[in-house]
């Protein structure tokens, strides 16, 4: 039965491409009516998590993940169909063609960061790459190196890998950041010790989008001859990356932040001077023994295609995203007071705009913005009501840290979406402020920081 249904769908889709009538809506009607047998409602609304959803929200959460580019999916599909071979099979065509595809993808990834394909190891994503880098390097050089330097605003997986090392007796320095989210290079310099085995600083922050001074950090690491690792998951394809300019020894990359598939990433490992790691996964010895396990050909092909598209489109996307960010910020600023951009405005990737709205409760704001898919910070911590540790590291007040919203703009964001987001955000903030006694007091000229709240 399902086969008949599928062929009906194919037929209707093909008919549409051939006749090119007002087909967008036509086919949707056809396909939904064909599926009506297996789903209860199909015309206007679905209910999820107790919320009735009549339309898909506009998506402004590109730091959490990005949609797959159709060009990427197009490259991947053949490897889900006839070309299903194991890239490590050496005895037949299936293996050979898969291996060739994996090696092409390796070149595409290397090309985007100015590396050699031999320096790329495919992993399951940036989290795995970060784990291999932090734990793998320190465990490999454990006889002489006992100290790691990282920052307070790193991604959870770097911080947790460091905690893990601390439990095993290593020492970790968590560098503080300035109020704009950038580290103080002098503090980094003075934190380096003779037994420092790794400096790990992320390139673009996932929550606030600030760009760390990578070249300067690389220079300091070179001066002291300390390996430098960077988590570039949010930087890849968005800002120009050169592993030589940055002088990184290790770099973590992710597929799904650059319009590629989820579940794939890469680790860049410098060959000259050579950096070595202890594998975190043992097995068949794939990826030069650093990451055993069959390489997922379709995902890797998609990651490679995403890198190639990113290389071609970086300039075009960047120009557009900058204009959209300006439009969003100006639009909100024109209608609301008491808004603060978290993190440096200049040293920032434009696709990430993290704003705090004063006198508004953050959770209520997010709940009110049902038609805009945004987040208060990283997706990993979006389940907790705690204010973000990144914002606290910046010294953002507790109340402002609670009201932050991260707007993530990407390749597929339209002007109309930005305008709608402005309209809805302004409406919601005004509504919440109208209810807020704090905002009323501020308007009357009372400085709420001076109020002595009585204890009950």
């Amino acid at each position, binding site marked *: 039965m399902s086969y008949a249904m599928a062929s009906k*769908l*194919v037929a209707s*889709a*093909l008919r*549409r*491409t051939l006749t*090119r009538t007002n*087909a*967008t809506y036509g*086919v*949707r009607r056809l*396909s*939904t009516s064909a*599926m009506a047998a297996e*789903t209860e409602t*199909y015309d*206007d*609304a*679905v209910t999820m998590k107790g919320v009735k*959803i*009549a*339309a*898909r*929200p*506009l*998506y402004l959460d590109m730091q959490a993940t990005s*949609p797959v580019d*159709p*060009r990427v*999916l*197009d490259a991947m*599909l053949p490897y889900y169909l006839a070309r299903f071979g194991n890239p490590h099979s050496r005895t037949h065509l299936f293996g050979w063609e898969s291996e060739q595809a994996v090696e092409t993808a390796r070149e595409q990834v290397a090309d985007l960061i100015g590396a050699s394909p031999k320096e790329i190891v495919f992993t399951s994503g940036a989290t795995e790459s970060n784990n291999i880098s932090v734990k793998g390097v320190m465990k490999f050089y454990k006889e002489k190196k006992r100290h790691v330097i990282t920052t307070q605003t790193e991604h959870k997986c770097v911080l947790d890998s460091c905690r893990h090392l601390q439990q095993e007796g290593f020492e970790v320095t968590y560098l503080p950041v300035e109020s704009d989210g950038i580290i103080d290079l002098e503090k980094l310099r003075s934190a380096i010790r003779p037994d420092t085995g790794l400096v790990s600083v992320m390139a673009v922050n996932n929550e606030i989008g600030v760009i760390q001074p990578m070249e300067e950090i690389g220079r300091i690491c070179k001066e002291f001859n300390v390996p430098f690792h960077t988590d570039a998951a949010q930087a890849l394809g968005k800002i120009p990356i050169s592993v030589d300019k940055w002088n990184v020894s290790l770099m973590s990359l992710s597929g799904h932040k650059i319009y590629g598939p989820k579940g794939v990433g890469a680790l860049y490992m410098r060959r000259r001077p050579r950096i070595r790691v202890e594998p975190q996964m043992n097995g068949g010895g794939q990826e030069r023994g650093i990451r055993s396990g069959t390489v997922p050909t379709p995902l890797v092909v998609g990651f490679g295609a995403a890198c190639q598209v990113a290389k071609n489109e970086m300039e*075009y996307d960047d120009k557009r995203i900058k204009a959209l960010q300006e439009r969003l910020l100006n639009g909100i600023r024109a209608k609301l007071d008491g808004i603060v951009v978290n993190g440096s405005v200049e040293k920032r990737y434009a696709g990430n705009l993290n704003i705090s709205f004063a006198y508004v409760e953050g959770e209520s704001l997010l709940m009110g913005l049902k*038609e805009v898919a945004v987040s208060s910070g990283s997706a990993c911590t979006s389940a907790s009501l705690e204010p973000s540790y990144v914002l606290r590291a910046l010294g953002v007040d507790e109340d402002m840290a609670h009201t932050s919203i991260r707007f993530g703009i990407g*390749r*597929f*964001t*339209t002007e*109309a*979406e930005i305008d*709608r987001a402005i309209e809805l955000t302004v409406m919601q903030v005004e509504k919440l402020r109208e209810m807020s006694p704090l905002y009323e007091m501020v308007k009357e000229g009372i400085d709420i920081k001076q109020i002595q709240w009585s204890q009950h």
Partner: protein
Amino acid sequence: MVSGGVSRAQILGLYRSLLRTARQFTDYNIREYTKRRAADGFRENRDLTDPSSISAAYSDGIAQLQVAKRQTVVYSLYASKIKSVMEMEMKMPPN
């Protein structure tokens, strides 16, 4: 008029096919992007004079068109049951 083995009519035909295919994407964001990217791509290459770069741009466009044609079919097969809020606007009266 022939430039680099690619005629003006062929180039205009490619542009029209790209826009027509772009309109068939069921996904709002992909549809808008494809239309915009095609228009901007042709605008960027409007002043090309070198025959070899014209034919390179043309064959790149043909390859993109083939991708778009396949993907409009894939997207239509798995089209979302509910539309984007951005598409709902068109039905509402302007306020």
